[in-house]
Each structure stands twice: as structure tokens, then as C-alpha cells.
């Protein structure tokens, strides 16, 4: 039977704080939804994340953030993607991001932000929808 392939995604956790329950949970949800998810683990630099995303040819990068440095880290990842000519890679994120910061992140180019408590279904549907709009390569 021929199933259409779902795009590959990268889930990573930049920043210095230690636990990755949230990141692993999202990775698990996406796996169960049929995505191939590349998991990079915790305490990754934006450079490591972007270089990995390019080598793995992923359609989207999901960042899990707890540290509060989200503006800087998202900004750096988006900037590196542009530098590498990979601005078509979608960036989404989640974690303890205050709702008031969400509009600013979206303006920067973050495609979606999931705050704690977002239902799994909504995460999958949003990502599915965003990726469906992308032109095929």
C-alpha cells in the first residue's frame, strides 16, 4: 500500500535549562501522527539546530523553550536559516512563552506558537495545515 510521505520535522531544545519533557512530548505526538521526527536533545545551540535541519532536509523546526530567552533564540534560528538560504524551513515553537510575546514572535517569522496546555490535536492540525501550504520541491 502506498502512503504519501509526511514531511520530516526537527524537534530541538535550545538554551541552557535542563529538562525536555515538553520537547519529548511534542516529538512523541508528531511521531504518532505519522511524521518522521528528528530529535536532537537538550541544550542545543541555534547553530547546531540549523545545521542539523539543513543536513536532515526537514520541512520544519520545532523549538521548545523554557528559559525565557525565546525572542533571542528564535531570532537567531531564523537569522541563521536566512544566512544559509533555507528560509523556506518553517519554524514553530512552544514552552513557557507569555501570550503577550506571541504577536512579536509571529512578526519575526515564527509560524506558530503553542503555549502550555495546547491540545495535541491542535498542534498536529496546525503543523499539517502550515506544511500543506508550502510549495513542493
Amino acid at each position: 500500500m502506498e502512503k504519501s510521505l509526511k514531511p520530516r520535522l526537527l524537534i530541538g531544545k535550545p538554551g541552557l535549562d535542563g529538562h525536555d519533557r515538553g520537547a519529548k512530548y511534542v516529538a512523541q505526538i508528531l511521531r504518532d501522527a505519522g511524521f518522521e521526527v528528528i530529535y536532537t536533545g537538550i541544550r542545543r545551540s541555534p547553530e547546531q539546530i540549523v545545521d542539523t535541519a539543513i543536513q536532515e532536509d526537514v520541512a520544519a523546526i520545532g523549538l521548545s523553550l523554557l528559559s525565557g530567552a525565546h525572542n533571542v533564540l528564535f531570532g537567531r534560528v531564523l537569522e541563521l536559516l536566512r544566512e544559509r538560504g533555507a528560509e523556506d524551513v518553517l519554524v514553530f515553537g512552544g514552552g513557557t512563552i507569555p501570550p503577550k510575546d506571541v504577536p512579536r514572535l509571529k512578526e519575526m517569522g515564527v509560524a506558530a506558537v503553542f503555549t502550555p496546555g495546547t491540545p495535541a490535536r491542535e498542534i498536529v492540525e496546525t503543523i499539517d495545515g502550515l506544511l500543506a501550504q508550502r510549495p513542493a520541491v
Partner: protein
Amino acid sequence: MERSLDQLVSEARGGGPRSQRAAARLMSVMTDQPHRLAELLAGSRDWPQPRLVLGITGAPGSGKSTLADHVVAELRALDPRRKVGVVAVDPSSPFTGGALLGDRVRMMRHATDSMVYIRSLASRGHLGGLALGAKGVVRVMGLVGCDIVVVETVGVGQSEVEIAQNADVVVVVLAPGQGDSIQMLKAGLMEAGDLFVVNKADKPDAAQLQQQLLAMLERSRTARLDLAHGASEPLVCHGPQLQGPGGPIDIQQDRPPPPMDFDEETPGVFLCSAANHQGIKEFVAALEELTTRQAALWQARRQEQAVEEIRQAVLEEVRRRVSHVLQLNGNGENQIRRILAGETTLNELVDWLMDVAASGTNAKSPAASDAKSHLRTEAAGRAEFA
């Protein structure tokens, strides 16, 4: 819009800032677009190739990724100008088709090293043609200049073993506390190994595992030699000998040498503690030595495999197209039900499927064609079985 493959190939090969991305795209074509695979594999024969493709396999959790990470670190330290590739395969969920690819976690220190290419692949069950796709990915790593490519697969399942067998050298990783070695023997892993690493040497039971493994390998070597004794007895033909100008011609001389000269020995066993980089230097030195000795032979062997490779790519594409037709709009299921109901025969359905797949259109099914011709062909089909 489809980027032309040629353009991707030349960008990947060019080495500029776009090279990494182009190479990564090309790898995706290899794994995701089986209809272009045959063309690509055929075209890839004059690409530069790695000198060594090293398969790493073994039980889950035995330390394959950690070993790969440390082997890469050692290779890079020995020669900073050398490019190294890693292909890491993790299983797909048979239920959802999704996969969590986590081998990378152990190798993140190489993420920003532009001389190291790492690619994670999902095994996608045995129908995905992964072995071919993975081979394609290795080719692309050769294209961008990787000297050595490490391929990690979990040593269970048909396709995983197949991938390992595409490597020039297969190393099987064992670790204490990973189920006993008899289980490995059952899984056919022992036969697949050219070399063995007993990992986690820092754990107390490692030495004992090494002893068990050595004993087992010695037994299987003896058995192999015993068997070979009969089979390889030179066949003497007592017919007339070929005569050349200088007397009788010895046909035996023209035989190619046996493929691997380390076949007759017991495979090497290395005791390592990969996580502590212990035993890695020795292991890598042995690999280097083996590669120097065998590289020319491996190149020749890969050339010989080219025909088989294309054959498999073509078969895979045929399978894909036919199953696509069988799938279409649930019509495929209707056809199968008609066989069950005795309205058509299996042969007839197969013929129809191949016709439709060949014409590339959604042709009328035998059900939709007029009933009389259908009855006629059915009768013909029955007659075949009579």
C-alpha cells in the same frame, strides 16, 4: 516546480555554501522518490565514492550510535581534512508510519562540523525499499567527498540486515546485559559480522561476554571449514586439456581471487568502552588497515552490483505503480472482491493492473468494461486452470 537533478548534483559536488543543502535535497530524492531512483543510481556510477562503507549493527541500546560518534571523532582527529558521513536508521512505527529518529542525540558534537554529514532515516517497514534509498544516500555522501561512511542500523529485521550487507565491512556491536549471545546467533547477526565490538567494557560482565563470543566464533569457523572441505575440493576434469602454443593451458589460473581474504579467519573482536573512547583508536586503526588492503576490491565489487541495483530499483518502481493502481479510489478493493465472488480471475486482474500501470491512466476496470467481453475473458481464465 521540480529542480533538475543535474543542477542538484552539480551544486552538491561544487562544495560552495549551497552544497550542503543541495546534497541534503538529493538524499531526500533518493529516499522519497523511488520513480527517480533508478535514473539517479545509474547516473551515480561515475561519482566519487567513499573508500569504506562501514555497517554498524547490533541489538537496541548496545551503543551503536555512541560507537559511530567516537569513530567519527577519531577519524576527524587523525585527518582534519577528511570528510566523514553517517547514515543512522531508526525504526518506523508499524502502526502510524511515524518515527522518532534519535541516533543524532549521541552525535550532536559533530553538528556544526562542516566535514561531517549525518543523515537520519526511518526504516519505513520492509516495503519502502529502504535498502536502495540508503544506498543512494551513501552515494550522495560519496559525491560530496566523504572518505568513510558509517551506516547504523538496529540489527533486527530483514531490511536492516539488508542495509548492513550493502556495507563493505559489517561490525556487530554486543554489550553485556543486552540479552544473551545465543539470541544474536538466532537472529543471524553472527553471520553478518566481519568484525565484532564488545562494547561497555567498563561493565563487569564485558570480559565474560567477550569469551563467549570468541568461543562461538571459533566453533562456527571450525564448522565452516569442515563444510568447505568437501565443497571446495578441486574438481578435476579428466577430459581433453586445452592446448595452447606453449602446451596445456591451466584454466585454474584465470579464476578471480576469492572476494575477501579475511573470510577464512575468525573475525576480529574488539573490546571497547565507546562512551569513554576506550579501544576506539585500536578499532579505527584496524579499519584503516583493512581499508588500505581491500579498497580496490570493494570498488570492483560495487561496480559489479550496479546491474543488480538498477534491477531492484526498477522492480521497486513497478511494485509502486501497480500498488498505486490497486489502491485507486477503492476500486482496487472492488476488483479483489470480484475475485472472491468468482467474477474474475487473479491472472486477469494482474494483466489489467499492469496495463493500467503501463498506460499511466485510470483506465476502465474490467468491471466497467462491457459484460460480454468480461465473461469471455473469464472463461479463458478458467480454461487455464482446467
